[in-house]
């Protein structure tokens, strides 16, 4: 379900990033940043926030249970519908429509207690039947939404009373509340026609929509804390340059998901703020453990030691990112905090290569593509860095169209992509012996056993300790060179405050934002 995005659908420009972030970042977490930008000053009530979001007119939809291919739609849904849980600042799911939840002993039956004061815009209360209807509809539309709720058995779900929902998972699933985060949009039971927006129970309601803009007004009947803003205009603009220009020229207050280059240009040119969301993009180097020369751990270690991480972050993400330590999910709550940071050590790298029998050099072909901005630069620069230890890496830029079918998880040496996937999802997709896309050919029986044991533990702290343990193995022996993680970047005009800068879908929940006059 959560494979890295490798879509021909999303191959160009900013759209791939947007979709990638949409589909994958939902599970991303971040332990280092707070929940929102905390600028000084008291929030001011009132005003209109004009938000320009990546959105492709071709894919605009009113159905919150479909593909969610458009950020502009997703933001509208996040503001007009309630979800069961939302991503919290610390990476754990927080209550929204569900106030509390608990699981049975085997972690495959989850009981959610809904708040009783939520009402739809037509005045009807939000009941357990509405939640079941909505979740079942999401599960039924698996073909459209990439099986978003595939881990839940909706046929076995039930509603013991009006404000309690019991959900069944197909296997023990300690992270069920997390899987429901953000995407479990609740619509009134029986809604089938989504040609026009269907009323929800969120902090805002839609008043008008056209080809580009959705106008939302504050829903004063919402159960939660009263939002500061009166009105939000969400505009879908596909071109990243046009989004940035809308803010710099004062036609919009916020531009979502702009490129590092556009941020640099805007910062140099005018009075703007930048919201940095951590852990959104990474381009790891993938080495297959079952093919030479990467079957020799000394070669993998040498390659990691030859990497100048800061130079890569500065060039590929223009500094809007952090160096990483060869683990693909440094933002996950289970990340082992006590790990030594690998740094560049050319002497040791050369030694290792000599020991491995490559004293007189090594010649390799590294595949990359242009699907996401900077993938090719990353390959070129890294190849230059490896030249310093006598390894000649020939960079081959493959067509973006066929990369994710012909190269990804097929070749033994290439530049990969992750967009904020969580560690457990990463393991399920690519690190178990039976994983569908085990791109590094990491097959380790004790790793698998420890992972499965960890996923049966309900207590997050205890589970994360176990997960951190197995990441130590991956750090030491795995097939990744993860040199850095790029930030998600939003551009705002100076008067805008209170926007979320947390991981993944959190950026869509902007109801606490406010604007100085």
């Amino acid at each position, binding site marked *: 379900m959560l494979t890295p995005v490798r879509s021909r659908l999303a191959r160009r420009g900013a759209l791939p990033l947007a979709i990638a972030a949409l589909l994958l970042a939902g599970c991303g977490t971040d332990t280092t940043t707070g929940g929102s930008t905390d600028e000084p000053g008291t929030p001011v009530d009132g005003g209109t926030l004009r938000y320009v979001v990546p959105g492709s007119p071709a894919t605009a939809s009113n159905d919150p249970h479909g593909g969610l291919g458009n950020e502009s739609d997703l933001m509208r849904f996040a503001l007009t519908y309630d979800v069961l849980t939302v991503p919290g600042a610390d990476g754990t799911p927080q209550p929204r429509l569900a106030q509390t939840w608990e699981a049975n002993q085997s972690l495959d039956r989850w009981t959610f207690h809904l708040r009783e004061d939520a009402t739809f815009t037509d005045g009807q209360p939000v009941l357990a039947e509405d939640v079941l209807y909505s979740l079942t509809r999401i599960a039924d539309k698996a073909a459209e939404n990439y099986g978003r709720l595939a881990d839940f058995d909706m046929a076995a779900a039930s509603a013991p009373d009006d404000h309690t929902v019991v959900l069944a998972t197909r296997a023990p699933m300690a992270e069920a509340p997390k899987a429901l985060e953000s995407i479990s949009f609740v619509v009134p039971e029986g809604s089938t026609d989504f040609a026009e927006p269907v009323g929800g129970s969120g902090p805002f309601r839609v008043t008008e929509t056209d080809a580009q803009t959705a106008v939302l007004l504050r829903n004063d009947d919402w159960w939660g804390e009263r939002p500061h803003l009166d009105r939000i205009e969400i505009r879908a603009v596909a071109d990243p340059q046009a989004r940035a220009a809308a803010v710099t020229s004062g036609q919009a207050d916020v531009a979502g998901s702009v490129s590092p280059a556009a941020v640099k*240009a805007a910062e140099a040119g005018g009075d703007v703020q930048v919201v940095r969301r951590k852990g959104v993009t990474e381009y790891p180097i993938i080495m297959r453990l079952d093919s030479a020369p990467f079957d020799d751990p000394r070669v993998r270690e040498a390659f990691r030691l030859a990497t100048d991480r800061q130079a890569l972050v500065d060039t590929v993400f223009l500094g809007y990112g952090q160096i990483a330590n060869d683990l693909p999910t440094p933002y996950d709550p289970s990340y082992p905090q006590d790990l030594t940071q690998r740094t560049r050590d050319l002497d040791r790298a050369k030694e290792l290569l000599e020991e491995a029998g490559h004293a007189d050099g090594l010649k390799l072909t590294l595949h990359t593509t242009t699907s996401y*901005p900077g993938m*090719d630069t990353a390959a070129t620069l890294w190849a230059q860095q490896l030249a310093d230890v006598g390894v000649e890496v020939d960079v081959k830029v493959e067509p973006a169209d066929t990369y994710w079918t012909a190269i990804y998880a097929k070749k033994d040496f290439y530049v990969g992509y992750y967009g904020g996937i969580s560690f457990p999802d990463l393991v399920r997709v690519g690190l178990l012996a039976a994983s569908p896309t085990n791109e590094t050919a990491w097959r380790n029986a004790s790793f698998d056993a420890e992972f499965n044991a960890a996923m049966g533990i309900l207590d997050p702290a205890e589970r994360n300790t176990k997960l951190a343990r197995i990441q130590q193995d991956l750090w030491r022996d795995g097939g990744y060179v993860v040199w850095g993680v790029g930030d998600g970047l939003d551009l705002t005009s100076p008067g805008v405050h209170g926007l979320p800068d947390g991981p993944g879908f959190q950026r869509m929940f902007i109801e606490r934002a406010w604007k100085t006059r």
Partner: protein
Amino acid sequence: MTRIRWSAVAPGVALAVFTLALLGRYLAPNDPEQPVAVPWSVPSTQLPFGADALGRDVLSRVLAGGANLLGVALTAAAAALLIGVALGLVAGWWPRWAGHAVRWFGDLLLAVPALVLALVLAVALPGAAAVVVAAVLSGAPLTARVVAAQCATVRDSGYLHAAVERGEHGAVVLVRELLPALRGLVAADAGLRLITALQLATTLAVLGFGPQPPDPDWALMLSENLPGAALNPTALLAPAVPLALCALLCAATARTATREREGVW
């Protein structure tokens, strides 16, 4: 004051500019993809065109940024011209069936604007390939039409009859006797084909179906450097001027060739 014979110098200048653009990356003083200065630095002696949003040398980027664009445009134009001339010769030689088909096909493709064709093709093809195919589909019938018309007029001239009576094969006559007579016409048409191809390649690149950042590319630089127009206008002018110049030179070349052919100055 003597009027500059624009049209007379244009082909020479065009050749020089195109050569410079195609080989420019070897003359670039800096790495076109690496920052070397403060973003939006204004022109100085070290950086004659200043720096762009990332502090990259605009001069180096301009020098390196024409090859791909012009390469695609030249390929597309050459393909359109070759196929067009071939079709035109066939249609002019056998006007009844082939001529009719070419005319009709030309009318049809006139109804589908070349840009729309290129975009539709970009669904399945990489940007450069879409430009080439669209340029051929929309340009070749036009070339074919003028070549066929001209061909039909020379067809009945004495020297062709003589060649045919010598017993030479039709195809040989076409290539050896007829083609040279069409030289001026083809030269003029080449300029027009190149204009269309250049426009298509530029538009698709700006729309994101061509080279991707951080590649230096004139078309991409137009949109990349627009946000800094007030800070370093040179960064915007630097790719715009050679791009416009190439287009102007193509137009001038086409006109020159047309006039030479018609004997009008």
